[in-house]
């Protein structure tokens, strides 16, 4: 799974990186973003809804920072 390190990026950079990385993932595959930015918790699901992708959920990266996973649908 491709994991984007957006730990130190302010809002909305994690979402911008997510959008830029999406084409590099095959349809059906997973893509994750690790971000300290508190807005990412709301904005990754909102991005999925607006862009027609699937929000898989939130877990923790190795360093215990939030990791948000997305499945490419289109």
């Amino acid at each position, binding site marked *: 799974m491709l994991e984007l390190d957006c730990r130190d990026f*302010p*809002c*909305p950079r994690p*979402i*911008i990186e997510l*959008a*830029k990385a999406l084409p590099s993932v095959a349809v059906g595959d997973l893509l994750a973003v690790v971000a300290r*930015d*508190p*807005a990412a*918790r*709301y*904005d990754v*699901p*909102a*991005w999925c*809804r*607006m*862009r027609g992708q699937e929000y898989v959920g939130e877990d923790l990266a190795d360093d215990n920072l939030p990791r948000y996973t997305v499945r490419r649908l289109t």
Partner: protein
Amino acid sequence: MYLDAASSQRLHPAARDTLLAALERGYGDPRRLHGPGRDARLLLDNARAVVADCLGAHPDEIGFTASGTDAVHRGLLGLAAATGRTGIVHGAIEHSSVLHATEWRPSPAHASVPVDRNGRVDLDTLAAASRREGVAVAALQAANQEVGTLQPVDEVDLPATVPLLVDAAAAVGHVVLPQRWDALTASAHKWGGPAGVGILAVRRGTRWTNPFPGEDGLDNAGGFPNVPAALAAAAALQAVLAEREEVAARQFQMVERIREAAVGLPDTEVVGDPVHRLPHLVTFSCLYVGGDEIVSDLAQRGYGVASGSACTASTLEPSHVLAAMGALTHGNVRVSLESGTTEDQVDRFCAALAESVTAIRARAGL
């Protein structure tokens, strides 16, 4: 072009005239029995009577506070204190003053009631949450300050022992107010009165005690009253309500144009109820755009707007309102019209908005 009337309105001409006159006459202590004291008492009573009439209340139900926030704190905590219980039940998108008052007096009976995608509170959940043991008071706003959604306040079903506080700060002067309230709060600078005047109205027969140090009763809530400002606030309210329907109808249509323009932008969602909403306010969020970036860019183009995004000024947390509604929290813009905003201005703003969003996305490489 000022498009942030929902944060604070410029002083209404009626308020300015009244304020200047009242500054001359209203300097005395309204509790004293000498001439200047009686003058100040007369002006204060006049302000109270006008505000009461405008809000559908009796004069003795009206108190002046230091701000809308102060009114909410005193109202909510004072209603709770009078019941002897501690639980506060509130909508998830209430103003931060409600959330702060709730956090300030922790209770296992507190509950935040979720809202739907349009920001409308779930009435059944609110009713169920209010029936739990230990609940003292419920709070539901008349309209939301960020997204404009009106709450179905008159349909709220609460136990007789749980009073309802309605925060009407965003609604007063713009829409017909709910009838169903035990306490109601508002803020004068939101309708064109001076800053530093909040309203706390408590219905006769509703038990309320001052939750803070000092005398009980609404007459002296917060110490020496600002008599000239209270009277100016009353004058502004009266003037605003006299033209409310006509202004609101015009603003509703202009906001409709902005909503259409925003929907027409790529990857942009308009947030809030499209119909049951404040007439003068609209909020939308644009993907890949920083709230601070777009506010600054629009300011450079001459447009003053607000944003609920995390990256703007006061906070690193995104708006709890947008978060609770499941809306996109970044790239957020709140536009709120003045009574004098014209269609031509709205059209120019819509054109500038499209340019601004395109320019910011181009800089981000999108």
